[in-house]
């Protein structure tokens, strides 16, 4: 459509299309799309040409090939004969493991430190302040190295151990060992009982809330749920004929020197790389969470506390029913992004040989040379984790948004 036609159609003579915001908008977007397409085309053709010229294999077929290397930690069955694809899955599970445990640990430490920051006790609040300022101003990678290389030298060697908790847990340079539950036939009933208990708790909570709204009577929901979650699985365990026993780590003190120390694959073992990464990640992230928690609690104005006291609520109720729900609204969004940061930061595992997604992927990249495919897998997994988190955030924000009347 040219300007001439526009003019002859009877539009105002000087209202040039170039000044029409809508047309300008279309024009710029068109140019932008064109630019992106040209860039994409440029990259794709170059890559294809380069791959062909350099004789590099491409495609996803390599995922089915035998990898030939093993990992030091695996949550599922894997060996040197596993395929590249399976080992990537192992790495993904390891990433999830360290991220999940790290999130829990970081949340606990972070809440404790955040509340300690607001303590009336000068010593406690200063210690919390020092913790936050010290930890969050030192690079995470340096902290990982510190935990791995500096602390590692301080624990006993492979043929010695520190035991604690009634001699059931042991720490040495090869990791933290403890009893491992071995599930027998019928053990699935314990899991089912656990799920049933959780479902029951959920219904009890709903019923108790309805009853309180209707009659004003309260019900000890927390203790009932707590009892249920403990009692039902224990009951199932007894009824099913105790289908579980603990496998204790075996500390060998005689025989060939290399076989001394803890026997491989007996009992439950957390490798030192996992421990170092976990500690570094949760301590680092906790310093940010502490600040978020502090800001969240401070964001609830003091008038709220005073008003709830005036209504006759006791301190515990004030905190639980008035302050925390309002503080959580401020805390949750930045908290989620800290969880996401922790998950992304777990990729620093590559520096200390913890076999996570990036570490195993890196090894495969090197062996197969298929850099594009491996990096695409990394990006896809981390992006989906982050998109899932964002989706949850949006859902939560909508749910918790202030309903103004």
């Amino acid at each position, binding site marked *: 459509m040219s300007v001439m036609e526009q003019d002859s159609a009877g539009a105002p003579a000087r209202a040039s299309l170039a000044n029409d915001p809508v047309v300008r908008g279309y024009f710029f977007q068109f140019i932008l799309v064109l630019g992106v397409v040209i860039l994409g085309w440029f990259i794709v053709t170059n890559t294809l040409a380069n791959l062909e010229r350099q004789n590099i294999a491409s495609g996803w077929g390599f995922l089915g090939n035998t990898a030939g290397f093993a990992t030091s930690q695996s949550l599922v069955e894997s060996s040197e004969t596993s395929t590249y694809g399976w080992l990537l899955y192992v790495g993904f599970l390891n990433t999830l493991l360290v991220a999940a445990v790290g999130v829990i640990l970081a949340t606990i430490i972070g809440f404790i430190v955040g509340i300690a920051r607001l303590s009336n006790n000068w010593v406690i609040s200063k210690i919390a302040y020092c913790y936050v300022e010290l930890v969050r101003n030192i690079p995470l990678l*340096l902290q990982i190295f510190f935990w791995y290389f500096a602390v590692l030298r301080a624990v006993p060697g492979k043929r010695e151990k520190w035991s604690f908790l009634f001699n059931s847990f042991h720490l040495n340079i090869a990791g933290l060992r403890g009893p491992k539950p071995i599930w027998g036939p019928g053990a699935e009933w314990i899991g089912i009982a656990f799920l049933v208990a959780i479902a029951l708790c959920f219904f009890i909570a709903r019923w108790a809330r309805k009853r309180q709204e209707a009659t004003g009577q309260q019900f000890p929901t927390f203790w009932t749920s707590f009892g249920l979650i403990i009692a039902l699985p224990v009951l199932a365990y007894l009824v099913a004929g105790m289908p579980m026993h603990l496998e204790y780590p075996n500390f060998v003190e005689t025989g060939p020197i290399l076989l001394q120390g803890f026997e491989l694959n007996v009992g439950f073992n957390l490798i030192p790389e996992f421990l170092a990464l976990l500690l570094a990640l949760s301590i680092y992230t906790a310093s940010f969470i502490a600040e978020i928690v502090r800001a969240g609690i401070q964001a609830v104005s003091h008038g709220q506390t005073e008003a709830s006291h005036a209504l006759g609520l006791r301190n515990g109720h004030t905190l639980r029913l008035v302050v925390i729900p309002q503080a959580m609204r401020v805390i949750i969004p930045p908290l989620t992004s800290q969880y996401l940061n922790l998950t*992304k930061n777990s990729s620093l595992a590559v520096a200390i040989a913890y076999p996570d997604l990036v570490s195993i992927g890196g090894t495969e990249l090197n062996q197969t040379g298929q850099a594009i495919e491996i990096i695409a897998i990394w990006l896809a997994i981390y992006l989906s984790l982050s998109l899932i988190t964002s989706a949850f955030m949006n859902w939560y924000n909508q749910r918790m948004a202030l309903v103004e009347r």
Partner: protein
Amino acid sequence: MTNSEVFHIRTEEAPSLAAPASTSGAIGWMRQNLFSSVGNTILTIIGILIAYSLFAPLIQFALIDAVWTGENRDACLPQEAGEHVGACWAYVKAYLPQFIYGRYPTEEIWRVNIVYFLFAALLIPLAIPKVPFKAINAILFLGVFPFVSLVLLTGGDFDIGFWGWGFVVVLALIGVVIAAVQMFAGGQDFAGVKPVLLAFVGTAVVIGAIFTLASIDFGLPVVETAVWGGLLMTLVIAVTGIVASLPLGIVLALGRRSQMPIVRLLSVIFIEFWRGVPLITVLFMSSVVLPLFLPEGVTFDKLLRVLIGVTLFSAAYMAEVVRGGLQAIPKGQYEGAMALGLRFWPMMYLIILPQALKLVIPGIVNTFIGLFKDTTLVLIVGMFDLLGQIQSSFSDPTWSTPTQGHTGYLFAAIVYWCFCFGMSRYSIFIENKLNTGHKR
């Protein structure tokens, strides 16, 4: 004694007594803040114990048992220097030049020193709010300084090549073409298209001038980036990353708030992509995959590739920071600007951005802190930043002692902490300063 003299009429105010000793002074403070209840007392004692158990060994290691002088490992070996040997500061002293300059040739170190000096001389007045000439200072720091340091550090004498000049020419051509189209098809006069022409051709001329400058041979010996390292590398990556990501971040933030759906969509995709992936995968991508994206024979310096990755990565974070600033500007400012008849870009650079960017200075500083800490990751792709340089010095047999690693890491921690803590204080200072304007 029964007369009226028992009545006492006070004619002056009673002297105000000091508060009871138990509520004032050091004791009062302690009672209130440390021992107000049994629980509090226990907490205080536990706290003091924790603090003692953490700091006492640290001080013992870093100061009391430390070795301050020595020529080689013998000074810090327990067998030679006594039972308890703490930090081996003699080793740090011996390696200090390498930690600061990397493996930069000794006779060329003056060039790095000039860059360090210029950096401080331009940044400090820029950071202090009271110092005048902010605009000139900012242009010098953001515009001139990077290229002066580029020439100084590398030695200049670049071969811009076909691609570089081609880019400049195409940029200028695009401007001319758009202007021509607007004049002939859009029916505008020359004054109307002048801004567009100026923007494109001006940018092309500036880039061309920079290229010309960079391709001049100043007679400085070329120093490859492979020998850069230590603090120099850390600062180059962090400062370049932040300076280059600022304009990109502004454009992305504007794009994300744009009315045009495709622009908005592309900005959102770009921002969320880079924010969703770990920096380490970005670094692997730039060191391993980026070369595959380029035509045969075109290669980038490894440092430049890393810089591109870091810049794109931090631009996404910068965009979100700037977006926060844009959202904080009241709608009335936009409407006022539009009512004055300003178009989009004049409205942005005359009205909105000056206000928004001032608001987000703390956010930018915080992004910089994050980036500064994240530069340590480049050691994983085999570059020697401060931490990498320290780590690589551990392999030197002349200084290898049991405490060498601890000393090195402690030194790294101190340096990083000083930088980051200083910057975070500065960010809080600016935040408080900005806040006053908004207080009612």
